[in-house]
């Protein structure tokens, strides 16, 4: 049995497999498949200062080896999360990450302040949601705005702070550097890639929001490339995600530069995927005589 535990910005995870934000709700549903303590952690559904109803349906379309989604951050608001969901989550014996999004920098700061007074383990700054009109990705696409929001939230946040990056940018490495320089404790990446599908019969986009975010196996090579580029540019740890489907993908993402992983879309075809991936990683380490999963991180030997 290899040691699967990892530390990200001082926070411990029993294994590197974390449920990806937005695919796992606040954990209650998947807890009816397996106890959540089998996961290294959970990144909760993105929350906002006030309740949001999200976009009108359809909110999803299938694509080759992936999906497009435009949920639009439907959530009950940070206060309800703190009262109704967080206490339950904290009893499940896993590491809990709150994923936050706002319309303004001030909203992000207020949420970070509220959550700093709770026993949530980490805060993930979602500045990369492509599916809302204001907030989300507008903060995540220039070095200046990423630097600004990171430093503002950092001043008012007492928890380890993860900044979640959008892949819809020209130079992801410099954006990551800007987050690091302004106080981010870790980077998570990638959020979804903006995409579109059209019904050729009706000539209507399948998603009511017209465009949506692409995730699933289709984005995996893009995610690996970006994690690798960012790992060459920053010293803070990276939580890698985007299309991880098998334990082999998980190993590849760690080797590219990730210290921990989030798993999302694959859960929709196999709810047990996170458990299978953790087991597969363990077997891989055992077979290769590797004692700790941390020994994989950033061991790629580039040409």
């Amino acid at each position, binding site marked *: 049995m290899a040691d699967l535990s990892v530390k990200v910005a001082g926070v411990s995870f029993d294994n590197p497999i974390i449920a990806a934000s*937005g*695919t*796992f*709700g606040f954990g209650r*549903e*998947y807890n*009816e*498949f*397996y106890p959540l303590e089998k996961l290294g952690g959970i990144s909760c*559904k993105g929350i906002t200062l006030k309740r949001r*109803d*999200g*976009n*009108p*349906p*359809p*909110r*999803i*379309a*299938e*694509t080759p*080896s*992936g*999906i497009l*989604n435009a*949920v639009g951050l*439907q959530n009950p608001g940070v206060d309800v999360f703190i009262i109704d969901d967080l206490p339950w989550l904290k009893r499940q014996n896993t590491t809990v990450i709150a994923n936050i999004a706002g319309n303004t920098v001030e909203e992000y700061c207020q949420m970070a302040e509220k959550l700093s007074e709770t026993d949530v383990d980490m805060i993930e700054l979602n500045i990369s949601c492509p599916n809302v009109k204001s907030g989300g990705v507008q903060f995540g696409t220039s070095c200046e705005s990423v630097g600004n929001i990171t430093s503002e939230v950092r001043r008012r946040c007492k928890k380890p702070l993860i900044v979640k990056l959008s892949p819809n940018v020209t130079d992801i490495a410099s954006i990551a550097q800007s987050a690091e320089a302004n106080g981010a404790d870790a980077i998570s990446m990638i959020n979804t890639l903006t995409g579109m599908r059209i019904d050729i019969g009706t000539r209507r986009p399948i998603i009511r929001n017209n465009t949506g975010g692409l995730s*699933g*196996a289709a984005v995996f090579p893009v995610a690996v490339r970006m994690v690798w580029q960012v790992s060459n540019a920053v010293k803070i740890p990276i939580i890698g995600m985007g299309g991880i489907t098998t334990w082999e993908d998980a190993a590849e993402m760690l080797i590219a530069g990730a210290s921990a992983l989030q798993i999302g*879309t694959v*859960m*929709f*075809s*196999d*709810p*047990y995927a996170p458990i299978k991936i953790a087991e597969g990683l363990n077997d891989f380490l055992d077979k290769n005589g590797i004692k700790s999963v941390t020994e994989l991180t950033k061991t790629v030997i580039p040409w």
Partner: protein
Amino acid sequence: MKYDVRQLRLISNDRIADGIFDMRLEYGQDDLPVSCGQFAHVYVPGKTLRRPISVCDCSNGELRLVYQVKGEGTRIMSRMQPGGLADVLVPLGNGFDVQKGKKYCLIGGGIGVPPMLFTAKQCDSPLVITGFRDSSLVILQDDFKSAGAETALVTDNGTAGKKGFVTDVLRERIGEIDEVCACGPTPMLKAVADICREYGKPCQISLEERMACGIGACLVCAVKVRKNGEELMQHVCKNGPVFNAEEVVF
């Protein structure tokens, strides 16, 4: 643990009408705790998303799913061979709430007909009204009769049963009915709900929305409902697929 992915052996997968297939799966000795109107989330090899299909029947160790080939996913399903295993997440959702002693009218339109069979089996001699585009799509009429239901069949062009719509029959018969349950295309559901409101009859409808997780975690299958005067988003997979028609904001 409330949920489990089951590997069920395929007993048969026969074409029963134009583009419509009847998949029978063996669930073995233990009872499958399915109630009428619930659905199964079927894994399709090579696809990222499972396909939601209503439970058509569940008895004698057999789970029955009747589905229409629409796109690639259901086409792959229609090629699955007897003897093989199907990976199915079942039962999911909240089904129809039916009680003995009431006179039910069950309405199915097109591929909304299958879930009404298992529902008919839970009711005392219900009236089942089914509507199809034409005779090539008519399904399950004998099954409804063996379930003790009175059947009324309509088609848009009169090639089977009476020419007309399910709502024509509903209007004629609504006086003798206590409650309506319906599944089918949205315009039909809306028309049925309007008639029920006009006559003050309770009405439950089964909705469709594109899904991913099937259990209420990913929030993609949203439907707008009105509860206590307030509009909010609920989810077809978890709060439904069956809703009180009065609460749905069409």
